[in-house]
């Protein structure tokens, strides 16, 4: 990567925000404690100092109203990045997201667009309990008119946030909070990853693991474990759920003939089902085994350290699931 440095996922998103705010005066940041406090995860640190309270706006704890305000501002020419502090709280903005933002361009026949980014932090693993740990991205992916992005690496986080801010549509941007301190190579200057492009994160021959966000890292670790058993795993990261780069996913499965789909949201009626069904429709004749879905347990996410980890598989458990698939015992 040219001009790359090793920086954290948190810094990568921040770099994209600052870069776009310097580039376009219409980009503003709106949210709870995003200003002087610098964000509850320090994810907006320094923006208030550089851009001032006119462009980095601390809102009251009024998610629905403040998000509605962001939509109205976007319709009137601003390009807001709106932060929902915890992904669980997108339930509070759902009406404005689903019934207004997603439909304005369509209903107005393109007279008004809604160029905004809704960013939010999700993810199991910080002992935040049932109302502060959920990954509800599948809800948003269900709604036509929204774009839904979930980067797994610092470089993708910068590139996709840049693309999201430049996009003239409402983009929902899910950041796994357990990735904030993960470091990786990130281009120093402008870096754009097109929304709707999947990426093969590790090439392989025997089985495709299609994984989203933090589960990409679990999948890569599982692939490493399986490599010791001479199993060659391909890891594919869709990077955005809407639009979904079906071609890259299907090409991988046609090559390996086996697919395991892994996502950090609840498994029931979730992202894994949608992707598995799409693969079944597009690549049924190439499959040598049933498509496996691996997702969050269908229970509220418990607080206690002893059982929260049971919500999702770790690398060893995922490797075991893949091994069962390969050996025909599933």
């Amino acid at each position, binding site marked *: 990567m040219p001009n790359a440095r090793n920086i954290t996922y948190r810094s990568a998103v921040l770099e994209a925000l600052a870069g776009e705010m310097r580039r376009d005066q219409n980009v503003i940041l709106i949210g709870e404690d995003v200003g002087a406090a610098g964000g509850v995860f320090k994810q907006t640190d320094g923006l208030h100092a550089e851009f001032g309270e006119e462009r980095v706006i601390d809102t009251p704890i009024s998610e629905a109203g403040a998000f*509605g305000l962001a939509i109205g501002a976007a319709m009137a020419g601003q390009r807001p990045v709106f932060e929902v502090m915890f992904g669980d709280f997108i339930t509070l903005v759902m009406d404005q997201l689903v019934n207004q933002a997603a439909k304005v361009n369509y209903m107005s026949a393109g007279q008004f667009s809604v160029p905004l980014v809704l960013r939010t932090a999700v993810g199991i693993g910080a002992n935040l309990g049932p109302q502060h740990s959920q990954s509800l991205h599948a809800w948003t992916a269900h709604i036509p008119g929204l774009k839904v992005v979930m980067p797994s690496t610092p470089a993708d986080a910068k590139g996709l946030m840049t693309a999201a801010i430049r996009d003239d549509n409402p983009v929902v941007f899910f950041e796994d909070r357990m990735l904030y301190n993960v470091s990786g190579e990130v281009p120093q200057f402008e870096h754009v990853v097109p929304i709707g492009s999947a990426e093969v994160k590790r090439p392989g021959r025997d089985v495709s693991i299609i994984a989203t966000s933090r589960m990409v890292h679990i999948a890569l670790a599982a692939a490493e474990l399986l490599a010791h058993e001479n199993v060659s795993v391909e890891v594919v990261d869709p990077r955005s759920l809407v639009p979904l780069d079906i071609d890259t996913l299907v090409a991988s499965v046609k090559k390996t003939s086996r697919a395991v789909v892994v996502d950090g949201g609840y498994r029931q009626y979730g992202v894994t089902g949608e992707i598995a069904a799409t693969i079944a429709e597009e690549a049924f004749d190439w499959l040598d085994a049933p498509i496996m879905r691996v997702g969050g347990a269908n229970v509220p996410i418990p607080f206690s350290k002893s059982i929260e980890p049971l919500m999702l598989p770790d690398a060893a458990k995922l490797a075991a699931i893949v091994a069962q698939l390969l050996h025909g015992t599933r």
Partner: protein
Amino acid sequence: MRHGRLEKADADEAAVNRVVLPPKDEAISLLRTMQLIRAFEEQVRSLFFGGIIPGLVHLCAGQEAVAVGVCSQLRTSDKIASNHRGHGHCLAKGADVRRLMAEIMGRRSGYGLGRGGSLHIFDVVNGNLGTNGIVGGGIPLAVGAAFSAKRNGRGDVAVCFFGDGALNQGLLFEAMNMAAIWRLPVVFVCENNGYGEFTASEHVTAGRDPKARGASFDIPSEAVDGMDVLAVREAARRGISRARAGEGPSFLVCTTYRYGGHHAGDKQEYKDTAEIEAWRQKDPIERLGRQLQDENLVTSKVIAALKGAVETEVREAVEFARAAPMPEPQDLGLHLYA
């Protein structure tokens, strides 16, 4: 009559606010726009019962003075956010009568290619952020437009229109709070017609005085006779001037009445006919017409001619819309994304 007894204090305030007629041209323009809205709604009603307009339509006949009085004080670059009973707001803000009718009829020549319908009419040229199918849904959109206007610094303002039903939506209070703390150039306009759908507001709304809801945020709030276009115009002028001057939001509670039901097909069995008749005696169009004649600004003949002209305009719009093409299958997926 259950609805609309202006409380004594409000009536006194309304009396203080009574204003002289505006210049003749403007007064005639107010009358003409109210007549246009009335004629438009009568045609929509008839087309609905004729099976030409499908779905649901929510008519504003009786409430014309609020839309016209407020929008008379707005410029094209100012924004409005309307609601489900929004044809009057669209017309008062300058909408093309033909495209509006075409949209309501589901024709491709409409503002949204016939894919929005009555509840979803957007007009970017005239700064209309849309009629809205969600009660209270447009309120924060207007506040956002006001936020943008404040940033742009050109003195533009935004207005949101909502009914008494939205007085009980939490979104209103979130929006009022932000408008107040950031002194945004927005005017909140409640069209209090006494009913939320099929239920009298007094059965579902606590608090004697709706304007107290704005006052609790220190937003200048006033009661307005919503059947008097001149009173509305004057109150709107005050609120909009305040907004343009950077002095923040205002709240107008306009007492008004819808002659028809919640939607065109609603038989209004929850209202008594005496009540409807009493409100018809306060008709805003008749009232302004009388005032203009009393001041010798126009004759009854001129008023009749104006009425005839808008009725012709609306009939032509109906002909245009009926002749307009329906959306094609390829329009189904158009504009999903910008």
